[in-house]
């Protein structure tokens, strides 16, 4: 057996701020408030925190975001970093926190992320910030919107496998149905496949309702060793597996637009956990666009390559289906404050595994997967979580 952190570290606290439009707050506040709530949930005093990881903010100007957050909280950690692997930051930061704890770099690590893209910057500036994330020589001069980067992958999936706009739209409809069960979700008005297809086209094949939200929000976790986790009042959720993959930066350098680094990251996470896709009871999958989920259910092993469209259309990603996914409504309907968006998938899977997802609980959920990704599948990170140390 290879050296591994599997089962050695647990999530013992989770906290969230309100999401949606939360005006008047700073990006730092969303980080700090979520952390305050997570520490209270864990029953841990801030003096016990010696590590802090966060993600970048589009709004806040800090060059040392993790240090700005710890200062706000009056914490002086001895392990700190701001991860910058775009959407994959969420799952990647849990893997890194677990590695830090398992290796002895830290005892108790806060992983938090917050931003206020909706209230803190205009929509135009938010979009502009995303545009400027593309290569200034080979991509940006052509007006490459981030949604267009993902749209290129969806268009190719439709070409290779016959995936339809209706199947893509079903993902948005399912996420909306889930959000209706999640208190505080940003978007809860019911929608139909016809509504999605009738909404304004952004970048083919994506309509407005195929695209994720712009939100404010923050979320935080407390992690510590499995030994120490026994002393906490919360039900520990163990990190059983973690894997990452970084396959390219430029979309034109991607070997494939339809088979992604998610296959590698998830295989690594499953292998570390000693588990298979069929073992998972619940999932959080980065749903920045509807088609992203279609490709991911394939690459994460929940269905065969090319069958993602029929899989989501058959109700396999909702309650009673093969793998209930984003039971909080995801980036499409719960909230998407930028980099923090993927952290809410982790919070939801933790709640499912604790049995605290009231009104949307997947009965008996013991094992869950969270997959985060970014940049047109440039970055991929997967974690496997469970209620028992040995999976």
């Amino acid at each position, binding site marked *: 057996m290879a050296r591994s952190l599997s089962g050695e570290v647990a999530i013992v606290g989770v906290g969230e701020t309100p999401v949606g439009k939360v005006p008047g707050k700073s990006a730092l506040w969303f980080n700090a408030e979520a952390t305050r709530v997570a520490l209270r949930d864990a029953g841990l005093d801030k003096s016990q925190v010696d590590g802090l990881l966060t993600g970048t903010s589009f709004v806040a100007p800090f060059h040392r975001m993790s240090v700005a957050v710890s200062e706000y909280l009056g914490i002086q950690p001895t392990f700190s970093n701001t991860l910058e692997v775009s959407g994959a930051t969420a799952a990647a930061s849990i893997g890194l926190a677990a590695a830090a704890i398992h290796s002895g770099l830290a005892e108790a690590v806060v992983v938090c992320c917050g931003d206020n893209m909706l209230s803190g910057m205009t929509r135009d500036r938010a979009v502009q910030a995303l545009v400027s994330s593309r290569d200034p020589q080979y991509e940006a001069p052509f007006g490459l919107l981030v949604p*267009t980067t993902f749209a290129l992958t969806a268009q190719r999936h439709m070409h290779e496998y016959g995936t339809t706009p209706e199947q893509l739209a079903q993902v948005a409809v399912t996420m909306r149905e889930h959000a209706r069960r999640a208190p505080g979700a940003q978007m809860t008005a019911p929608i139909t496949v016809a509504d999605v297809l009738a909404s304004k086209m952004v970048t083919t094949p994506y309509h407005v309702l195929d695209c994720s939200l712009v939100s404010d929000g923050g979320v935080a976790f407390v992690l510590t060793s499995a030994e120490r986790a026994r002393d906490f009042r919360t039900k520990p959720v163990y990190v059983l597996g973690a894997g990452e993959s970084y396959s390219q930066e430029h979309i034109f350098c991607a070997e494939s637009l339809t088979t992604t680094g998610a296959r590698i990251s998830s295989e690594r996470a499953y292998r570390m956990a000693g588990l298979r896709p069929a073992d998972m009871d619940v999932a959080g999958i980065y749903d920045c666009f509807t088609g992203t989920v279609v490709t991911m259910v394939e690459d994460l092993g929940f269905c065969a390559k090319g069958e993602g469209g029929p899989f989501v259309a058959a109700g396999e990603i909702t309650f009673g289906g093969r793998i209930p996914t984003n039971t909080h409504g995801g980036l499409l309907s719960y909230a998407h404050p930028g980099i923090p968006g993927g952290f809410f998938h982790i919070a939801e899977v933790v709640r499912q595994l604790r049995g605290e997802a009231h009104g949307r609980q997947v009965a008996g959920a013991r094992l869950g997967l969270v997959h985060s990704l970014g940049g047109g599948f440039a970055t991929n990170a997967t974690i496997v979580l469970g209620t028992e140390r040995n999976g």
Partner: protein
Amino acid sequence: MSGAKPLPPVDDDTRAWWEGLHRGVLLLQHCRACGSVQVYQRAMCGCCLGGDLEHREASGEGTIYSFSTVYRPPSAEFKDDVPYTVVLVELSEGPRMLSTLVDMAPDAVRIGQRVQIVYDRVTEAITLPRFRPLASSATTP
């Protein structure tokens, strides 16, 4: 027009590419050591890290690998251009590059269509590569 669009900040790695485009030539980097052909231009071969790279004139032809027609502009500068179609072109020499289509209605665009480079002189110093349907354009699967 509504403001200046982003222009490529040319550097030592990429100067040959942009100078080539400005005089109407698409140059691809070929590695003399391993034979790899690359986009984008680098000071070393992305395959073998060798530094013996040669710029060779490309055919300027390729096929549409994927595309997306943009209806909501990414920023005000692109407002007058919508709808425009972003394409990933697979060049005949192998590598793919990103561009936009000209002379083609959005509804007519298909993956697999043959396209040909067009040199779009956007400033005194910069020419952007665009693509249009190849004359006698045949679709390959």
